[in-house]
């Protein structure tokens, strides 16, 4: 130990663990104060390694700071603050404790100087976030278990990959890698699982909307963005990421447009937004990496803002389906305005944080002469405006009058939303301090005529398209869509709607797969269940048979 430094992430974890043991005002003070302390601690740390530990015969660097890690740690601490403020009236102490541990371990990942520390915090994150999901109530049971299984899958991939890297290189340092050997591919796969990349993206829209009104706000911020951080640090310029990112971008848009549940719309939109960042990491130039990091920073805040707005609606009305909502602008002005600010930011309207961050990514693609990527990203930006920028506020706060007359939520929730909204606008207007903390020196001017006009045209035309197609969009709202419904039936339904022959074939194949899988699990149960041949009480003769078979086999193979 070079110096007695408590890692900032650990401060937050300890605060989280203390939360269930304090009550009322003391708990609220702790929830506000701890993230701010962490923020101070992050900025008080000098660049470089400030702590080393010996574990398992390896030297770990739990605290290692540079511009990139400081940026992510900062926004995570800000997010923990805003999320804590928003969640002050959450009575479920278990969820709050888990959320703070979750946030703390995310900060732990960003400050980790070696892979083993990354892995350790990674696993804590998986456990804590599973508890946050489970705290959503009885409907969250199944999703929570699926969520845990996927994340532990990522965890063991990561562990196996790290063990391989250590065995190959003898070093645990976390720096740029190339996905050329088996271990590094495993690590990349683990990072991508947390990023919500295909083919395992479904955990995200499956689990996040099941959490409570406050839990989803926390969930939206940390898991996917730590994945983006680790990708920026570990795999800058890995070309496959461009295409994975683009896939995520469009996956998110298509499903969000078809979705009816407001929080699930926003969950798909997380996949979409993280797709932009993953794509930028794949491009890998300093401009693109700045874009990825900056976009992550901006995204955390505006997505939290959107989910707070949705969470307020859920908190006040208990409803989250677009078809049950509408017309709430009359009685929930603060939630409505803040939701619109978030929607504008996610759509990258000029003068919002989304604009100053995202335009860097498109420009990086342009600068590298990646024409296809550039145009796909531009098309996707229009899609973002459609599904998140207009659809969310329109169906929740305007559209028809649902007859609901809820009030705006309590002061702390309003304050959290206003805090995020101010940040969204502030970063968009005074962007130079924001650019100054990006990982690479910035030589970029967001507000020149071509950018602004390009984006405004894009947004206005897609806005026009939305209202022209409103009839078509409304029709899908009568169906309650579910993720596994999509997997099983979605393809076929879309195919029948639009007469896509190839999609129909896809639907049949997918359905066949699920039928097969069910058969396999039933088969496993028949064999391994309490009464199956592998688990029921066997006659002693069966065991004796095995023993003699093994003995015979042993001798046979020895003598030949």
């Amino acid at each position: 130990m070079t110096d007695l430094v408590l890692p900032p992430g650990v401060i937050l974890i300890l605060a989280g663990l203390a939360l269930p043991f304090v009550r009322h005002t003391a708990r609220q003070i702790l929830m506000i104060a701890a993230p701010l302390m962490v923020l101070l601690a992050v900025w008080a740390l000098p660049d470089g390694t400030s702590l080393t530990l010996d574990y398992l015969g390896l030297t770990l660097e739990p605290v290692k700071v540079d511009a990139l890690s400081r940026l992510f740690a900062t926004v995570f601490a800000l997010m923990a603050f805003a999320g804590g403020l928003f969640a002050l009236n959450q009575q479920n102490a278990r969820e709050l404790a888990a959320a703070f541990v979750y946030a703390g371990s995310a900060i732990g990942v960003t400050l980790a100087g070696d892979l083993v520390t990354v892995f350790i915090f990674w696993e804590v994150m998986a456990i804590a976030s599973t508890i946050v999901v489970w705290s959503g109530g009885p409907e969250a049971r199944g999703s929570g278990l699926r969520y845990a299984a996927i994340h532990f899958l990522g965890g063991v991939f990561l562990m196996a990959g790290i063990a391989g890297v250590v065995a190959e290189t003898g070093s645990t340092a976390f720096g740029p890698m190339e996905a050329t050997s088996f271990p590094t591919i495993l690590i990349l796969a683990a990072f991508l699982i947390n990023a919500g990349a295909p083919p395992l993206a479904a955990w995200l829209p499956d689990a996040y909307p099941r959490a409570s009104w406050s839990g989803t706000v926390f969930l939206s911020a940390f898991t996917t963005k730590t994945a983006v951080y680790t990708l920026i640090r570990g795999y800058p310029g890995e070309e496959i990421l461009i295409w994975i990112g683009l896939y995520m971008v469009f996956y998110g848009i298509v499903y969000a447009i078809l979705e009816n549940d407001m929080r699930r719309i926003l969950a798909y939109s997380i996949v979409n937004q993280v797709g932009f960042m993953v794509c930028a990491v794949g491009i890998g130039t300093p401009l693109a990496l700045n874009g990825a990091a900056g976009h992550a920073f901006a995204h955390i805040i505006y997505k939290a803002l959107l989910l707070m707005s949705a969470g307020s609606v859920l908190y006040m009305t208990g409803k989250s389906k677009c078809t049950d909502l509408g017309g709430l602008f009359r009685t929930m002005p603060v939630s409505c305005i803040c939701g619109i600010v978030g929607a504008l930011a996610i759509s990258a309207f000029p003068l919002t944080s989304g604009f100053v961050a995202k335009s860097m990514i498109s420009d990086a693609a342009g600068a590298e002469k990646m024409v296809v990527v550039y145009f796909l990203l531009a098309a996707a930006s229009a899609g973002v405006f459609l599904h998140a920028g207009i659809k969310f506020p329109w169906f929740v706060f305007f559209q028809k009058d649902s007859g609901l007359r809820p009030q705006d939520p309590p002061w702390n929730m309003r304050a959290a939303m206003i805090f995020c909204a101010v940040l969204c606008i502030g970063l968009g207007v005074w962007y130079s301090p924001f650019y100054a903390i990006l990982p690479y020196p910035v030589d970029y001017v967001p507000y020149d005529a071509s950018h602004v006009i390009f984006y405004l045209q894009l947004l206005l035309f897609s806005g026009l398209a939305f209202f022209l197609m409103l009839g078509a969009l409304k029709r899908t709202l009568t169906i309650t869509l579910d993720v596994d419904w999509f997997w099983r039936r979605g393809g076929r339904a879309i195919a029948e709607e639009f007469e896509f022959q190839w999609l129909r074939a896809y639907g049949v194949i997918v359905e066949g797969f699920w039928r097969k899988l069910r058969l396999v699990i039933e088969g496993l149960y028949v064999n391994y269940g309490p009464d199956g041949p592998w688990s029921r009480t066997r006659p002693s003769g069966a065991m004796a048979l095995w023993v003699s078979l093994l003995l015979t086999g042993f001798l046979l193979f020895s003598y030949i």
Partner: protein
Amino acid sequence: MSVEHHAFHVTEHLPALAAVVPLIGAVAAALVRNGVAAWLVAVAVAWSLPVISILMLGQVEASGPISYALGGWAPPAGIEFRVDQANAYLAILVSVMAAVVLTGAPRSIADEIEPANRAWYYAVFLLCLCGLMGMIVTGDAFNVFVFMEISSLATYVLIAMGRDRRALLASYQYLIIGTVGATFYVIGVGLLLAMTGTLNLVDLAASLPEVEATRPLIAAAAFIVVGLGLKLALFPMHLWLPNAYAYAPSTASAFLASTATKVAVYLLLRFAFSVFGIDFMLANTPAGVMLMTLAALAMIAGSLSAIFQTNVKRMLAYSSVSQIGYIILGIAMVSETGLTGGISHLFNHALIKGCLFLAVASAVFATGAVRIEDMAGLGRTMPITMGAFVIAGLGLIGVPGTAGFVSKWYLIQGAAEQGMWWIVAVIVVSSLMAVVYVGRIVEVAWFRAPAQRAPREAPIELVAATVALAAAVLVFGLNTDFSAGVAADAARILIEGYAR
């Protein structure tokens, strides 16, 4: 041969005491006939053994392996008790687990066993402990068999004392199968004796090179490996285990799950590495491939069965089958890293499974039921016990910060060193299954509403024992000096073989 008479120093007789103290204790417990008094005897005896074991490890660390001539008769003619890092480490593990479990046991036993039989339970428990400790410290192949029979017979009785009537059938089945295993072992030893004329392990190791690769020797190896494989419940010879653990008294399950199979693993290590020598085993027998294949199958099949169980003790038992797979896997890698992983997992799994079974013992005490659905809401009514269950469960999955992570790290590292990625895949799949079967219980206990009737509070000593083990799971996850450090020493000693 002259027997020197000198002043009796306790520290010179530690290996003998390790086996004799529990034997005397067993007799004493049987004689007092009173459950509480017998428990006091058992606890006193059980706590003296960790002291003896730690002192032995200290002596070994200070001045090399201890060779103790039983009754003053010098080996190889007399029986030798021989202690080095490998078995001193195991002696500490077994004695500490026995002490912790016995300390927590009394009211759970009073709940599950008729008053007339309670003193017998403690007597038999100590007898079993005597057998296990004897197998660990002895350096004589036939003496191993004697102690194996002592512990096995005691185990059959322990299992049969379970309150479920199926306990009798389970015990009877284990008796038949256990006897087959022990017989195989003794046949192997008989062949060795016929070939070399000695039963002393060190002496055997020295004489075997002269008769190398002859068929009786291979047959001896086959009988011993298969016989011990049965005792350690290696898949597919595990069929006796689930019922034995499921229907034994709860605290007996905790003790057996954390010690009995581990001692058989130790004997397998001892014979494969120290006596036959690993070069012989790999060159002349399929033991390496066979153990690795069976270990991999155990990890998958055991976990699969665990996922689908409805009885929580049976679930834990199947999980043991898969965890034994991890241990054997590390051994079958035959590298220092792999062996360190296997041996430290032996230690860590004992802590973890002991903790889980004790937590279940509390749950059984509180609700009287062992079905998973009957544990609904227990997190709210007995948060400390179920909190310990969660910690140990995380250890089973191998989450960092828990003991399970340390051994799994070494195992994956060992597989990666040899480029055996399919092994890594098996570990990955098996760990995920552990997430499912642990997650199921955590979800039921913590996130469901409690049943109508309020459960009883579990007795304080049982909760304390559970918490102590859960704390150990965390401590050995963070500080690996002992668990992995001594395991690494043991691995090195085993790979070097006996050198006199």
